[in-house]
């Protein structure tokens, strides 16, 4: 497939053209798996974006389908509850004309009685090509690659990484801001338990942004400084000079585990409200990977306000996931496409 076709300048809903994404002409994508953004180079990330831009156009056609993965089987292997990520991957695979198998187990393999290895090898024996895996255990996708010949795409592993969400967030920032390098990105919430925060951090820092993690001391360990983040516990201070603020969901179960005293106190200290936006940059981009706890981490009027890119993140999710599925498949059989 040529990256320059069918259109390179699809119009985004913001009315801007696609921002230029510079990737060397002789770049060749080689990864059969997408496990995390930590191991990707800046060029690989940009190449995914460039591929995603070409797929954005597909979603605007009346027949929203290309034959890129016709005859391939993508398995959605979800060991953790998920609606939007699973649907997004399924739709992305279908738009590439792949067949999609859904596997959902509410509980982890251990309680279910069959090991992950056995589950996967059984499905693989049916003749499938890609495993999209969501699992509550960090490293489960890495473990999967040790015994499958299929491509593996990490759709979120425990508290470790959620690479496609990270790519979506960064792609959305790039679309709205036209660049990543030099931006101040503030990510707020339960950073310690967040795979989205980790993937954002790796991707953003590789592309030259400055990332500040904000949240209570019990949820934002200083260890993140060793990964290149700035750690802050003062949202108002962090928002001054910020170009982007990404508000992470506060998990309900954390509210009862003594990491902070009450939801009200959390909202007072770390919730994003209209008042708090006074004195910030007028073009501050407000993001949330969803689902939102309205009135907890994000006030409703802010979530639905003009600076919010939340729904755009969702629609970009499709293009990014199409790009990822396309690229890992292409790396598996470079001559077939």
């Amino acid at each position, binding site marked *: 497939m040529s990256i320059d076709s069918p259109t390179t300048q699809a119009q985004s809903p913001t009315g801007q053209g696609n921002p230029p994404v510079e990737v060397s002409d002789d770049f060749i994508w080689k990864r059969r798996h997408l496990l995390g953004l930590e191991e990707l180079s800046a060029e690989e990330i940009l190449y995914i974006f460039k591929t995603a831009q070409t797929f954005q156009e597909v979603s605007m056609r009346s027949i929203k389908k290309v034959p890129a993965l016709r005859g391939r089987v993508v398995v959605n292997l979800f060991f953790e509850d998920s609606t939007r990520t699973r649907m997004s991957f399924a739709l992305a695979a279908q738009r590439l004309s792949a067949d999609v198998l859904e596997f959902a187990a509410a509980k*982890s393999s251990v309680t279910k009685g069959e090991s992950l290895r056995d589950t996967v090898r059984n499905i693989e024996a049916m003749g499938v090509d890609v495993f999209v895996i969501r699992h509550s255990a960090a*490293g489960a996708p890495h473990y999967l690659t040790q015994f499958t010949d299929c491509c593996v795409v990490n759709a979120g592993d425990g508290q470790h990484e959620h690479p496609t969400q990270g790519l979506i967030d960064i792609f959305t920032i790039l679309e709205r801001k036209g660049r990543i390098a030099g931006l101040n990105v503030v990510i707020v919430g339960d950073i310690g338990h967040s795979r989205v925060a980790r993937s954002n951090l790796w991707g953003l820092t590789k592309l030259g942004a400055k990332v500040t993690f904000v949240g209570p001391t019990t949820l934002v360990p200083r260890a993140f400084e060793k990964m290149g983040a700035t750690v802050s516990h003062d949202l108002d201070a962090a928002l001054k000079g910020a170009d982007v603020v990404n508000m992470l969901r506060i998990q309900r179960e954390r509210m009862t585990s003594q990491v902070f005293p009450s939801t009200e106190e959390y909202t007072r200290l770390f919730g994003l409200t209209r008042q708090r936006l006074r004195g910030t940059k007028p073009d501050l981009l407000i993001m949330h990977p969803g689902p939102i706890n309205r009135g907890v981490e994000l006030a409703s009027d802010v979530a639905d306000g003009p600076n919010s890119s939340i729904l755009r993140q969702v629609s970009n999710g499709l293009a990014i996931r199409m790009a990822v599925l396309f690229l890992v498949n292409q790396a598996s059989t470079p001559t077939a496409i």
Partner: protein
Amino acid sequence: MSIQKILIKGGRIVDPANGMDAVGDLLLTGGHVTRVGGEITDYDAQTINAAGCIVSPGLIDIHVHFREPGEENAETIASGSEAAVVGGFSSVACMPNTRPALDDEAAIEFVHRQAARANLCNVYPIGAITKGRAGEELAEIGQMVRAGAVAFSDDGSGVAKTGGMYRALQYVLMFDRPIMQHCEDPDLARGGVMNGGATATRLGLPGISSIAEELMLQRDLTLVRETGARYHMCHVSTRRSVELIRQAKAAGLRVTAEVCPHHLLLTEDACATYDTNFKMNPPLRTRDDVKACLQGVVDGTIDCLVTDHAPHGIQQKELEFLDAPFGIIGLETALPLYIKALIQPGLLDWPGLIERLTVRPARVLSLSKGTLSVGADADVTIIDPKAEWTIDAAAFRSKSRNCPFHGWQVVGRAAVTIVGGQVKHECRATAGVA
């Protein structure tokens, strides 16, 4: 048919208990050492040529898990004993975290019976401190002492309740047996699967902070000071633990400590592949902790070297890192790994290493073992210090394969293991032994 006499010719006899390090012959008659050193001629004896080899008292490992009763698919007392003699160990002490736990007289006698049936190495049972290792009521420690329990431990977890630990230390004073504590504050460590800190944060894995180990040790040392009991800290893994033990010894407390090969050779960075063979408890720590543990071994703060041999069946370990059980096996690899960690970098000489694998662990448990004095039990390990080999988990005598050192090139191995005057293991591949 048992052979009455064994004559070991021309080896370098290293017996740290007697300050001996000299080339010479060793004669074993029946179950005892009868002559040591110089040239010995005895035409009735089976002769073993030990030229180029080290003749050591039988190695002793005071921390193994043999899984019997309850998890015989992972290990039995017989298969564990076989792994022990292959690794050069003539004596082991086995932990009571079986199913059910070794927490009464009958269970201790069961271990003795199974060990006698296996008839390979000496197996010393360690009894549980509390009934069912539940951390609540004291187990029948006195009855277990009478049945032959050499120490008491709830290993696998620490005794969390301060009052319970205080009473246990008071109670064992009557029998002068040590308490072997697995130091880990359960509230701080809850849910953790690797060392707490920056690497765990990066990998998205819940951590076990080193303070979980140090806090329980610190508490226990206060209780030991108060009671005067004998206290042995299992598997030291952090710098601060080494420092606390050093201070406790300087203050005259009856405290001893042990360390495992993996805490001298590996760091938390190994967890980055999510390979469950790097998941153990205490977890692999930082380079700085490894350095402190090595220093603790060298200066004697850490008395002895153990394996914490912890077998798990393949299907138990072949899981996500978060879900797999803690522990790795070690009996068949410990000797070359200790050579790699301590002899090759020049931290210890051979007498120094052998002391920490024989007479010192024997003293921790008050065993009359670990020396080649005339009259001592005829437990001997002949070590080929130059044998080069590759660790192959598939070749282990242990029933389990959970070993992070598979594929490592190592030097040194047990050529012959003699227990009670009988050859229990002989490595034919090793040069120097006829």
